[in-house]
């Protein structure tokens, strides 16, 4: 007998709605990726990623946007190193040196959760104010500083999550053998490393795509920076600037968008893959 009661009709209707919603989400993803890939490949040429802008960059096809790619890398890689150097000690201090339930540990966790949620434009505005106060110009150094500040809360948050997975027995065993806290740190590093690598790569992916933070602090330039006090072009800012400019810039904008998306995807995917691969040997 066919069941036609209300609850079964409701069930069927809801199921259709749910499938529709899931398809909608998939449709969005496909639409975004498709637009970027199609438009980007159409205007892509090898010159774009291997040459810096030439003299006639503004009116004709002369050179490419290698300066933006290198600029982004030059901003993000030192920032990643600095941010890792600052956040890993903080994470270890919060979880190893102090108990997880220690009030200071709790306060720090809350503070960084708050910092994590602050939009990057506020970071940029704050950093710009400080730079003007101190006399710095929009430069590579400014860009690195802001990106570091941006990455630290992300790393601390992920680091915190990961350190929850360290079994207490491991730490106790190290202590029982007479290790100091500093030495236990090196013991649990092996356990924590894959997760941290994933976290670092994901944070780098987020930071490299962030235009709001570098908008006022790194400036923009048509050349690769020679020193830390030169302004530098960055990929997301280049995309943001070029989409509203006349030909030939929009084409470059799409290629740059394609390049940026590829970089970010490679970073995210490799982060997860590396993390999964090395976690095999964990406790």
């Amino acid at each position, binding site marked *: 007998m066919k069941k036609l009661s209300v609850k079964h009709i409701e069930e069927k209707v809801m199921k259709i709605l749910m499938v529709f919603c899931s398809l909608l989400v998939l449709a969005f993803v496909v639409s975004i990726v498709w637009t970027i890939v199609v438009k980007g490949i159409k205007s892509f040429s090898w010159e774009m990623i291997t040459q810096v802008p030439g003299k006639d960059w503004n009116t004709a096809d002369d050179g490419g946007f290698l300066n933006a790619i290198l600029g982004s890398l030059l901003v993000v890689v030192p920032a990643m190193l600095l941010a890792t150097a600052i956040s890993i000690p903080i994470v270890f201090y919060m979880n190893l040196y102090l108990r997880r339930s220690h009030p200071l540990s709790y306060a720090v966790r809350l503070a960084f*959760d708050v910092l994590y949620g602050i939009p990057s434009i506020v970071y940029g505005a704050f950093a710009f104010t400080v730079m003007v106060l101190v*006399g710095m110009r929009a430069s590579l150094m400014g860009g690195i500083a802001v990106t570091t500040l941006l990455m630290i809360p992300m790393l601390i948050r992920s680091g915190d999550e990961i350190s929850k997975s360290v079994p207490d027995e491991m730490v106790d065993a190290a202590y029982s053998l007479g290790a100091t806290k500093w030495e236990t740190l090196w013991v649990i590093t092996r356990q924590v490393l894959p997760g941290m690598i994933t976290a670092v790569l994901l944070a780098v992916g987020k930071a490299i*795509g962030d235009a709001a933070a570098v908008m006022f602090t790194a400036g923009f330039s048509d050349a690769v920076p020679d020193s830390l006090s030169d*302004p530098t072009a960055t990929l997301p800012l280049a995309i943001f600037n070029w989409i509203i400019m*006349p030909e030939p810039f929009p084409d470059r904008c799409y290629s740059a968008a394609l390049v940026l998306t590829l970089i970010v995807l490679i970073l995210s995917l490799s982060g997860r893959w590396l993390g999964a691969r090395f976690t095999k040997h964990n406790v």
Partner: protein
Amino acid sequence: MLHHRKIFFLLQFYLFNLKVHIICVHLSAKYYTDFMYYHKGRPLMGFLTGMIALLSFLACTQNDKDNSVSEQEESLHGSISVSGAFALYPLAVQWGNEFEEMHPDVRVDISAGGAGKGMTDVINGMVDFAMMSRDVYEEEKGKGAVDFIVGRDAVVADVNAANPLIDQIRAHGLTADDARKFWITGEYKTWGDFLGNGDTHPVHVYTRSDACGAAQTWAAWFNATQEDMVGTAVYGDPGIAKAVQDDIWGIGFNNMAYAYDATAGTPLAGLAIPPIDLNEDGQITPDEDFYADKDQMIEAIKKNLYPAPPCRNLYLVSKGVPSDTAALAFLLYVLGDGQQLNEPAGYVSISEEAVNRSFELIGVGGKGSGLKTNTTGRIVNIALGILVFFALVIGSSYCIPSRTNRRVFRQKLSEVSMFVLVVISLLFLFAMIGGLFAKSFPIFENNSLWDLLSGSEWKPSQGKFGFKPFIIGSVAVTVLALLIATPVALLTAVYLTEYAPRIVCKIVYPALDILASIPSVIYGVWGVLFLIPIWGYSLITAAIVLCVMVLPIMVSLFVELFRVVPEDLRTASLSLGATPWQTTRKVVLRKARVGLFATVVLATSKAIGETIAVMMVCGSIPAIPSSLTSGFYTLPALIGNNYGEMASIPLYESAIMFAALILLVLVILFNVLSRVILYRVEKVAMS
């Protein structure tokens, strides 16, 4: 200790020559090792020795560099930075290229961000020259701005070349009164109103969102200011050209440099330039029609045929007379040989008297008044110094002979330095809040908090700072985005956890990961390409973009929440005869409802703070949005568009900082709220 080696050790500090220094180090090496052996067990001595050796090494290398530089005084070197008006940008780039060819050791960086940004940059000491396409205000001169006329051009109106009424528009012409009715009062709602022929097609008016000379000059033509202008505000001169190119009913204004094609000299493809009706007789005679190409325009400007606003001088402005040799040389070049590049590029070159005036200013000036020295180099050195300091401190731990003491030293050192780092990072949060608060303090002197938050007028040059349009804009777009996103995310999450076969999960989860990692700019690009042609720069476009941005995080959090609900509850419900959906609705959702609420709050805080994607699609209109398809403005977009353009208007900077403060407070509130709720949910789930 061997005394002759000690002499070499001491000598290396006095001779300040790198080669001699290295020789002395080599010869006194044994002294070093004896010294360290004598002081073993004292990490402090090890640290100090290392520090002194390093500093003296650095001092010698610095002196060498200085010596070699002063020997090459003949060739000009250094870097010049210029920023400001789009109007002067193409010409300035040519000047920069020529100058770099003449002086290969000089680097010229030119960036365009609007006249307002240029002025702010130069007053703050961030650049050497500002490119200005409007006159310098008295307050700016009071802060030290000195202007040098370097060219002359004009702002022209433009319409879309494919407009069906184009011939009538060209024959009718534009008077100052017409322009006023387009851009200030909005009386011309249809093309029929303007042409008087009963046409009912709507007029889409465009203006500039960044503080710029073009808009100011254009508005001055009909006795108004940029702020009074209405219309969809687009960023940058090229932006407005593109907007009119894409909109068949659009009308806008551009600097000549962007309205005309740079190489061909004719109006840009897709644009047509309505002539200005000089004698206001309602029709254009051949002597009023000189817009066919740039050369004709330049001749007309020279003969003063084009009215004086929107025709204006272009300036390079510096803070005080440039005292830096490279900057001064660049200025002299621009005033002299550089003028030959003006006309081919589409600008009028400057008159004799303008040149003389500039030379007078340079002669009189003497020293730059308070030009902030570029301390970036110094800060870089300080930062490197700190890194070296840490390296030395850690290295000094190797001086301790006893293994136990070494371990204790390292433990204590690590504990102290980590604690310091933690305290500094806590202070950073307070510094950010405190700094924003301090910077926005000035605005409270004239306006009360309530006035600021509830005022609807945003006219900074008249001192009216009403933030209500921005707050309402932010809230409206966020609420709309979440209204769409929450049900979609909820249903998707339910489907993924309860119903979906494995293969669907295998596709959807990576898709969500990809969506989560895509940067904000890319969403903006997608919005511009995909959604703007459908709905234009409006509330609904921005809401859809925001919705797609928060979907991945909402779905993944919902999935996590549903996983936490114990399977027994589901099984029990099913065994009582409920359908899966009834189970979900009455059992799972109820159990997870606190977490659901917290997720929505978290997504709200993310959406409110979203800057770049919204900036690209919102339309930048500082008024409360009247419908779903009208342009609007949000707090982050306000900060992003206007930051750095504030020196000329008093209290503007403080207003923008206040906007940042409001944003910060809102985001913190939402964030803390959601974390507190989620924390409680976790606690309950674990117990």
